[in-house]
């Protein structure tokens, strides 16, 4: 689960110097992109293309891994054995998605260890959505339905991304993500049709997850300067606002079916434009969460760092074990 909202490079001093590319190589590269050819790891590519992909794919991978935390929070408290099995399978999928994506990033000449170090040092970003807490069981439903729903909206066009390994990883992810969204909606259906208290719980979850889900698509197009190059190089196929609009148009009728109310008093159907008009998004909240001041940023990073440190002896022991067996085999 992830969206594209973070793919913009940080505007800070010390950013890599722009590289002057060989005009002929650049021309040939762009001709291949125009012809819908896929770029593969050892092919020539502009430094900015490589950099953008490493940043986007690694942010995506980090998001999958950090995304395991809010949902993992409910594994021990799932309301039935079947719900628990389903949630374990879903969280395991998120770990798998992280693994596919780190694998795709590594084809660009960066090591997974380096990327994980960046996450743990706090210099890499991950999707802002995972810095919100999961307070009730209904949040697990809302995450599957809305957060994974928003992620799918973004990820389906990424299956046609110009970079082969990323596109292939996304194809695999999308197949699995559909299960995530449906199991989430299934939880919401059960609650919305349950006791008044359960229905209130479902409404409360929608109230809290609606706006953060819309923010997942990233800043409005007017503030997103790097979209143009990403679109030209077919890393990105649609802009943030296009995808956000599509998500709203898909999701509002689903909320209505649940008998729940979308927490936006300005939301209305525009017959002429054939789309939903919606209220202003609070971008100051988005930027605060991205900067580290969301409700759970510190808790998430602490959990990742603790897990990394606690696992260190296992990683070292496995290598020692493998080395011992290699020596034994060499002597036999």
């Amino acid at each position, binding site marked *: 689960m992830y969206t594209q909202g973070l793919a913009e490079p940080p505007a800070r001093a010390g950013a890599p110097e722009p590289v002057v590319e060989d005009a002929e190589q650049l021309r040939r590269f762009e001709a291949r992109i125009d012809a819908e050819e896929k770029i593969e790891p050892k092919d020539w590519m502009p430094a900015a293309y490589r950099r953008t992909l490493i940043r986007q794919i690694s942010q995506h991978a980090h998001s999958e891994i950090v995304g395991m935390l809010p949902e993992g929070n409910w594994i021990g408290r799932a309301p039935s054995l079947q719900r628990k099995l389903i949630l374990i399978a879903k969280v395991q999928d998120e770990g798998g998605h992280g693994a596919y994506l780190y694998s795709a990033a590594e084809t660009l000449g960066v090591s*997974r260890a*380096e990327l994980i170090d960046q996450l743990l040092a706090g210099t890499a970003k991950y999707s802002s959505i995972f810095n919100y807490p999961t307070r009730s069981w209904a949040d697990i439903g809302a995450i599957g339905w809305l957060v994974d729903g928003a992620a799918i909206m973004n990820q389906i066009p990424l299956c046609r991304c110009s970079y082969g390994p990323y596109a292939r990883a996304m194809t695999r992810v999308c197949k699995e993500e559909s299960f995530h969204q449906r199991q989430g909606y299934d939880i919401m259906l059960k609650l919305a049709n349950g006791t008044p208290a359960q229905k209130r719980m479902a409404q409360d979850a929608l109230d809290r997850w609606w706006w953060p889900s819309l923010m997942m698509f990233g800043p409005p197009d007017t503030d997103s300067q790097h979209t143009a190059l990403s679109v030209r190089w077919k890393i990105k196929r649609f802009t943030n606002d296009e995808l956000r609009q599509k998500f709203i148009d898909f999701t509002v009728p689903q909320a209505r079916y649940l008998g729940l109310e979308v927490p936006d008093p300005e939301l209305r159907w525009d017959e002429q434009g054939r789309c939903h008009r919606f209220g202003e998004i609070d971008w100051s909240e988005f930027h605060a969460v991205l900067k580290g001041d969301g409700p759970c940023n510190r808790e998430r990073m602490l959990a990742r760092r603790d897990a990394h440190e606690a696992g260190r002896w296992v*990683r070292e022991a*496995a290598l020692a074990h493998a080395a011992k067996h290699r020596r034994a085999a060499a002597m036999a």
Partner: protein
Amino acid sequence: MNEAGDWPLYEIFIRARGGLDHKHVGSVHAADAAMAIEHARDVYTRRQEGISVWAVRSTDIVASDPGEAESLFDPARDKVYRHPTFYEIPKEVETL
């Protein structure tokens, strides 16, 4: 462990079902080959995507250079006579 502190990288190939070739699906990090197979099982076959796994150390793979693709593969371009469709056979001649 390499300098970056990671386990070695293995490329993973999966046979989806009997009668098909093993196909490259991605990579995993693992301390040794046996662990690479186990990780590949967990990462790439959670929904019965395979019945057999190959794991190959990434550093053991020798690949052609995309920069030499033209000189390697272009010589085949003008040899259309290698394809059966190059030959026109009279309609009267059957089973050919």
